[in-house]
């Protein structure tokens, strides 16, 4: 069974390794002050991790369930604010202009969906993992195994993007090449994760949110001043620079005023479809990112860690507020990046949050803090992802299906071993990344949105959905998104950027079909489900929606 798991994980990700559109051309030299700042924050995370060491599995996996709304909101936000949000979104906005805003729209709007449909019922269920929830609701080990596998695939894809971002930053700070800096970042993350478990990770995440949001926000004040703004509130001030760009006005160092083809190129960039997209690909991208957000295991698990369902709900509001703050800032980096470097291409894009301040002559302290923020973003997300993947394997594969009744200690060891295995695997793939950071992440979202989201919606909101429907829907969603990923790598137009089933936005077609397949198969097989299984689902649905127990069920128990 582990072999099957390994193959299903290896398949999508090793294919990634065949395409690599960018080179990593940034100024590689050792930078003393940034290096000291980055190392200082690492030591701090490790200390906090050590001081809050996990002793029981409940501590290790879900932080003992004692976290309030603002704390949990910050934890959601910092799980969320990965290197993709921190570096990738600014990069895409730089490269694609207005069209890149689809990432912001999708990644914030998904939380509304998550809140309305999932947050409170998941807390009422209150166990460890999403695979456990779906497996229990559908009363099926098949569903449990598929969900656990999907969790691992998502974690691996997503973590590849994070390690790419962290590698770029470490390389820039320490002046080492990309390969060694990925290994360095991975080593730090792994040590930190194994020592602390979820309690330490959650505690660190609150600190990491503070570091990353300040690191992201503070340089903006200086950037906007250097570009001619007043520096009161940068997210409300870059408008004049943006409209200047649309008229070809750039920094004096870049020529002051663009003319001819360079001017029309820049003007096009900020028009809705000027950078190559159309309304279909925009809506498909937004839809995919939204359902993906609502189906991401490592975000959903956050709702198990709160005190009660009202806290679960308000922590979404706080989480989205914190996330919104970051997304208000990303376009500023992109626009100011264009101002200083109007003609840059893909090679600059993923590094724009460091290269824009560098060109604007910000001092080494700011740059170091920015780098520390980007790394905090990467570490906190990778930590949450690896936890989710490890718990999927240790909890849902090993202790529930393969080896029922194993000791808690054994479960912890399996979780730790698997964390290391996944981490090594991710590093290998990250050494040769297949796409821009934000695009790799979007693929992980397509998987989540086409498999977990439909199964979860129907698990909670359709009592007629059963195990056969769930399996059919999930297998459809998983195989189609994997086909789309392979198609993207093989550069087949249908699955490439702007295609009907683009790997980054395939859910607009696949998810509704997955919902329909789940419902149709469930209806067709409704007479095949046993009474005991129906009783089981029934009692879970009552718990999810806080309905009174059945009179006869109470006697059976």
């Amino acid at each position, binding site marked *: 069974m582990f072999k099957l798991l390994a193959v299903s994980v290896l398949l999508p990700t090793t294919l990634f390794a065949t395409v690599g559109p960018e080179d990593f051309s940034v100024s590689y030299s050792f930078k003393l002050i940034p290096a000291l700042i980055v190392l200082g924050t690492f030591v701090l995370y490790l200390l906090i991790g050590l001081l809050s060491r996990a002793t029981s599995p409940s501590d290790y996996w879900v932080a003992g369930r004692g976290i309030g709304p603002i704390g949990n909101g910050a934890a959601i936000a910092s799980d969320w604010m990965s290197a993709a949000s921190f570096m990738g979104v600014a990069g895409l906005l730089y490269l694609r202009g*207005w069209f890149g*805003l*689809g990432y*912001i*729209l*999708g990644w*914030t*709007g998904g*939380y*509304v969906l998550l*809140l*309305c*449909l999932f947050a409170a019922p998941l*807390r*009422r269920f209150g166990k460890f993992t999403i695979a456990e929830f779906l497996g229990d609701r559908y009363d099926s080990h098949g569903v449990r195994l598929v969900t656990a596998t999907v969790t691992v695939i998502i974690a691996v894809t997503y973590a590849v993007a994070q390690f790419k971002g962290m590698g770029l930053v470490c390389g820039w700070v320490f002046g080492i090449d990309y390969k060694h800096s990925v290994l360095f970042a991975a080593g730090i993350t792994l040590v930190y994760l194994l020592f602390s478990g979820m309690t330490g990770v959650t505690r660190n995440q609150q600190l990491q949110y503070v570091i990353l949001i300040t690191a992201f926000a503070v340089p903006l004040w200086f950037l906007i001043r250097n570009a001619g703004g007043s520096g009161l509130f940068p*997210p*409300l*001030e870059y*408008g*004049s*620079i*943006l*409209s*200047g760009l649309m008229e070809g006005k750039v920094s004096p160092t870049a020529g002051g005023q663009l003319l001819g083809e360079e001017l029309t190129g820049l003007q*096009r960039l*900020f*028009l*809705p*479809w*000027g950078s190559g997209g159309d*309304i279909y690909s*925009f*809506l498909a991208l*937004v*839809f995919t990112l*939204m359902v993906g957000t609502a189906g991401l295991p490592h975000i959903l698990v956050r709702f198990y860690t709160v*005190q009660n*369902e009202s806290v679960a*709900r*308000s922590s979404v*509001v706080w989480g*989205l507020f914190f996330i*919104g703050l970051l*997304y*208000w800032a990303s*376009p500023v980096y992109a626009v100011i990046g264009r101002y200083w470097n109007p003609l840059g291409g893909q090679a600059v894009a993923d590094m724009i949050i460091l290269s824009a301040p560098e060109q604007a002559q910000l001092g080494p302290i700011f740059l170091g803090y920015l780098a520390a923020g980007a790394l905090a973003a990467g570490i906190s997300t990778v930590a949450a992802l690896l936890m989710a993947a490890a718990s999927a394997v240790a909890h849902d594969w090993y202790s529930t299906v393969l080896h029922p009744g194993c000791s808690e200690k054994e479960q912890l060891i399996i979780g730790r071993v698997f964390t290391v295995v996944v981490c090594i695997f991710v590093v290998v793939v990250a050494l040769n990344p297949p796409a821009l950071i934000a695009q790799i992440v979007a693929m992980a979202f397509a998987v989540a949105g086409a498999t977990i989201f439909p199964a979860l919606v129907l698990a*909670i*909101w*359709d*009592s*007629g959905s059963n195990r056969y429907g769930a399996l059919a829907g999930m297998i459809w969603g998983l195989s189609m998104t994997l086909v789309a990923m392979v198609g993207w790598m093989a550069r087949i137009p249908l699955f490439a950027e702007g295609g009907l089933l683009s790997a980054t936005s395939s859910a607009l077609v696949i998810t509704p079909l997955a919902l329909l397949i789940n419902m149709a198969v469930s209806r067709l097989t409704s007479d095949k489900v046993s009474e005991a299984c*129906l009783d089981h689902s*029934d009692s879970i*649905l009552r718990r999810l*929606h*806080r*309905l009174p127990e*059945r*009179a*006869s069920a109470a006697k059976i128990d």
Partner: protein
Amino acid sequence: MSERVTINLFRPVGERLRREVAVIRIVLLLWALIAFGLPLFIWLCGLGDPQGFGASWLTRTRIFGGFPLHYWLIAQGATIAFVLLCKLYTELLARALRKIETPWYAEAGQGGDDV
């Protein structure tokens, strides 16, 4: 067995679920309007652009001292709207649930708050 619970997002049974689903419907309707209606609106307005880049009065209007309106609406307007929608959901739901009498689980000590 008619005793079994029937849950259907489109046909909620029981007062509590009906109220909850009514709130969900309002919020998701507004959500869809912002998430998909807004880009469609920008697209419709820009259909007249002969170059096909979607230029329109939206891309020519400047607000807050320089933001092109089509850019601001997505970059900041939608984000604010989504946060407010989440707040609206928690408020509406709290109000809807307050109208129902003390629920059974508060006395039975069950529900979501233990474990």
